[in-house]
């Protein structure tokens, strides 16, 4: 009985996932390699062929360094499969820094857009290009219409988008739009590093990563570390991000509804 129920449930979940992926049956995902994170994501990993929203807090809303670092690390395995495009409003991305994190900067094309609309248009164009695996765009915000357009572009050839929310220096914060077409929304904040015992200086970089929204999955918060950053091993290994700890103090609603049962 329970076996039948489970199989029905699995079939239904697959059907919903297929509907959400816009009819693309072969919706792939990129596992983080940590069960705690992958369990929250639909398909057991970062959904590909969709776009993700990344944002920072405080100083990071203008700098956009932590979300960019997280996006580069999460997309590094993708960039090794194809080409990557990074759309900037401010030309301050430093390729040697990406190499240190293990991102193949030799496969990255950078584009400096003149304004917000142009950045979104270029992102859409790049996402719908064959051979482009990952597109990063630094934008102020993505409204519902732009988000749907990005989603359609992603579905063309299965490219994955990373929209890094970044405000121009001294600019006003944009009004938050209610809905979003993003598959996931992540909030990235820096976290103090832990050097190994007997070592001086800084340890491998760490981030406090919150999965704020996840279509077809659950939310969560974790402490992640780029273990191999700034070493020659940075570009090797299954996934550059390692789970250090699951963060208990979630400000969000509990992921699983409280089951009321007798």
């Amino acid at each position: 009985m329970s076996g039948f129920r489970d199989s029905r449930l699995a079939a239904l979940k697959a059907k919903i996932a297929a509907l959400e992926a816009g009819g693309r049956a072969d919706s792939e995902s990129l596992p983080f390699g940590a069960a705690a994170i992958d369990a929250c994501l639909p398909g057991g990993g970062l959904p590909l062929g969709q776009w993700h929203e990344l944002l920072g807090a405080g100083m990071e809303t203008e700098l956009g360094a932590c979300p960019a670092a997280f996006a580069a690390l999460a997309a590094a395995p993708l960039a090794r499969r194809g080409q990557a495009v990074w759309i900037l409003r401010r030309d301050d991305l430093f390729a040697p820094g990406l190499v240190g994190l293990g991102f193949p900067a030799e496969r990255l094309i950078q584009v400096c857009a003149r304004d917000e609309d142009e950045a979104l248009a270029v992102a859409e164009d790049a996402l719908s290009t064959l051979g482009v695996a990952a597109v990063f765009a630094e934008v102020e915000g993505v409204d519902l219409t732009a988000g749907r357009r990005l989603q359609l572009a992603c579905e063309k050839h299965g490219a994955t988008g990373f929209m890094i929310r970044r405000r121009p220096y001294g600019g006003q914060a944009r009004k938050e739009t209610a809905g979003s077409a993003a598959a996931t929304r992540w909030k990235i904040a820096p976290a103090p590093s832990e050097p190994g015992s007997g070592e001086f200086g800084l340890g491998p970089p760490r981030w406090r990563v919150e999965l704020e929204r996840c279509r077809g999955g659950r939310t969560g918060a974790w402490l992640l570390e780029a273990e191999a950053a700034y070493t020659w091993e940075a570009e090797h290994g299954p996934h550059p991000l390692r789970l250090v700890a699951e963060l208990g103090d979630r400000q969000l609603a509990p992921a699983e509804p409280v089951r009321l049962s007798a």
Partner: protein
Amino acid sequence: MDKAARALGLFAGQKATDAMALVPDLVSAESEPEADATALTALADWSVRYSPAVAEDAPDGIFLDISGVAHLWGGEAQLLADYRARLAGSGIFVRGAVADTPGAAWALAHYGKGAEIIAPPNGQADLLAYLPPAALRLEPAAAAQMERLGLRLLLQILGLPRAPLARRFGQQTLVRIDQAMGRADEALSFRRPPHPWFARLAFFEPISALEDLQRVTRDVAAKLCARLEQEGRGARRLRLVFHRVDGRALPLEIGMALAARDPARIAKLLAPKLETIDPGFGIDVVTLEAEAVEVVSGRQVRLDARAEPAIEEGLGPLVDRLSNRLGGERVWKTAPVQSHVPELSARPAAPLTAVPPYAWSPEAPRPLRLFRQPEPLDLVMALTPDDPPRQFQWRKRLHRVARAEGPERIGEEWWRGDIDDVSPRHVRDYYRVEDQDGARFWVYREGLYEDGVPARWWLHGVFG
């Protein structure tokens, strides 16, 4: 007409039968003016090795403008000697002269005494004086008239009053005299290197509607691309010019990352720019010129659908679209430069350049965001002058440093600049610091420690 022929009594313009009578075993050949002209053009093309400005002088002469190039050969005499020697090597015997004006040089080459004549600057008048009037390239009627009047030498003509001279022999005679003496300019039509990648469409009626412009762009692109296709080539840069009825030419340019010859793609790249064209009273000619033409081998598109897609299919057109829409300098790939100075170690390169992996060592930590201008830090506290800071203020926020790493000393590249500007003040000591929240910064102290001089601290980037 060489010496041997002259000795037999032959001369140019002689009847073939007379010549046969003089020399019974004469071998005669048909005159071929077209072949002569082709050979002269080939010779003019070859002469470019001496000077970029070469003009043909049909039927048997070549003008070279050697101003500013003679010293490369050791002087005018050496240039002329080298020219004649090389031609003699291939069985062509020529006479040459160097003078201030094309007219004087022509006269000396055709009628002067000797095969190599160098006229000193402003000295052509003395050399020309004893030449016949025909040396001035006069019209046949005028030359014959002078002959009849007993004017055998230029000396006699140059002294005559100008007005009667013009009345009797025509205005052209005066012009030729002035040109030979350097009193009037002479326009030579210099040889132009052939530009084969060119297509032109002329219209019966001038056009001005945008749809028409789009249509003719497609047509002219198809015309040029058919030829590129035939010869296995593609163009990297194209220049489309609309010629208006009022004589103005309106150019449009596009560039492509990979050489292409697909008319639809070229028309698509040009289409958004057509709106900027002001047709005025109409456009009657459109030309398309391909620059930077390269050999493009037709490559087989994927048999194996799983392989990485070819650049021509996806990335190439994307780069073209973006660089034509945003401007070439806004689309780039970062390429490495051998330099320790962080801001100099990366440079923007063309978006489809092949950059080797590990172009930068991952072991030297570099920030993800590098500021173009380092930003000054205030309220920096360090325990000793060469210690990392314990706290600093940046953009009105105080950061307490929890961990620090360094210094990494980066000196200036003294071998590049002026030696007088080199100073120990340009040395930078970089520290990687982490504040209480975990935010990681790349800060540096400028210059070496000096007693009594407060240290200056800068933020050069953030790691994220």
